């Protein structure tokens, strides 16, 4: 009985919506015809040039603002998703409960222990490449690492500073992104949520690095000269290691 009433109500609603859609369609036809005829009758009408450039500029600014906002959100979400506490935040986690340890992997130890075995740093000061790199980066950015190698097709897209950390984003034509985040390493303990991801340790230029992989997207974390690094991208692990091993130091 109740089901019949529901069916009936549904039928009434469908018919009612159909009736209103019919009126709406007529209203739309009326509207378009009215404005079409108005446009036809004013063939010389033009949008003023000054207004045109104002609109396009406003749209451009709006677009840039959206992109900046999106990049910031991407970075924040990305960091949250991988549940990696940023290398740059000087908070001690020593008091964290041990109870969740079964699901978490403590990674600070190996990073810290290997701290003395500094990985190779290639300082770069001149050359056309460096000029292009510096041109891309925001003003005032110096003393940072930049990929000397990127998989084919990736180009610089964005650079963003959050706190003490610097993030550089590279994109290819299909809009896949590689993100490199770097910041000073504090003696804080980091924990990585290890659930639902493959993970392990690899060597980056002879130093231990921690990697996670989830749905084909790899994250690599390591340290280099008291800097912490996080590299993220949809490339395979060996390709990501290659990027990590060929970082250039930009003075």
């Amino acid at each position, binding site marked *: 009985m109740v089901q019949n009433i529901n069916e009936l109500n549904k039928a009434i609603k469908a018919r*009612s919506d159909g009736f*209103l*859609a019919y*009126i709406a369609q007529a*209203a739309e036809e009326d509207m378009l015809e009215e*404005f079409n005829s108005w446009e036809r009758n004013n063939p010389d*009408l033009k949008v003023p040039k000054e207004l045109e450039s104002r*609109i396009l500029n406003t*749209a451009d600014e709006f677009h840039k603002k959206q992109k900046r906002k999106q990049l910031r959100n991407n970075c924040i979400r990305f960091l949250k998703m991988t549940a990696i506490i940023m290398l740059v935040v000087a908070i001690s986690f020593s008091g964290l409960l041990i109870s969740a340890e079964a699901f978490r992997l403590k990674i600070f130890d190996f990073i810290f222990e290997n701290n003395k075995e500094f990985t190779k740093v290639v300082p770069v000061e001149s050359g056309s490449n460096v000029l292009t790199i510096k041109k891309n980066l925001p003003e005032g950015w110096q003393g940072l690492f930049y990929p000397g190698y990127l998989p084919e097709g990736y180009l610089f897209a964005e650079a963003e500073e959050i706190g003490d950390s610097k993030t550089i984003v590279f994109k290819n034509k299909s*809009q896949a992104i590689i993100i490199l985040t770097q910041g000073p390493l504090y003696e804080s303990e980091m924990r990585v949520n290890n659930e639902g991801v493959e993970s392990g340790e690899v060597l980056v230029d002879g130093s231990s690095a921690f990697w996670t992989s989830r749905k084909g997207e790899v994250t690599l974390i390591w340290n280099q000269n008291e800097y912490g690094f996080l590299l993220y991208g949809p490339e395979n692990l060996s390709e990501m290691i290659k990027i990590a091993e060929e970082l250039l130091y930009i003075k």
Partner: protein
Amino acid sequence: MTDRKNSKNNVLDKDKFESIYSLYSKYLYAIGLRILKDEDYASDALQNCFLRIFENIHKIKDVDSRQTKSFVCIIMRNESINLYRKKKKMEHVTDSFDKTLYIKDENSEVEEIFARAEIKKDIQVYLKELNEEERDLIILKYLKEYSHEEIADILHISQDSVRQRLSRIRKKLAIVVMKDKEKEEA
């Protein structure tokens, strides 16, 4: 993956926006002039309209289509009317159709009236009961099938306002249908 999609959309959005601009700016400017009868006001309305289009650009699938044309037209008409009111400091006279008070504000009752209604050959009988804004609302709701939230977003009004206005429109049209039926029965 979503991030990558978003990034891709960003690029596409800009291209899409430029296509929309080149295809419809003149047309939309004409709408502004028709409503506002002033070039400066029409320019302001056009600028606001394109900002609103940018905000809602994800709703536009095919730039060169009737669907998009009516969508941008509704936005421009809405912006022009809003600006007209603002500039002239005119208060919107909502409606003087007092008979709507006699119909219960319950969708089910109105729906039953529409469900029983016969589609008239002369659709103008219904259309003449609706002002331009009301026509825009039923186009967005019943033709484009946007949610109240989306309509509120497009027209820059609250969701409550969308609900109230749609309810008023339905009641208005229900009265036309009822009158028509009474005539037939008489």
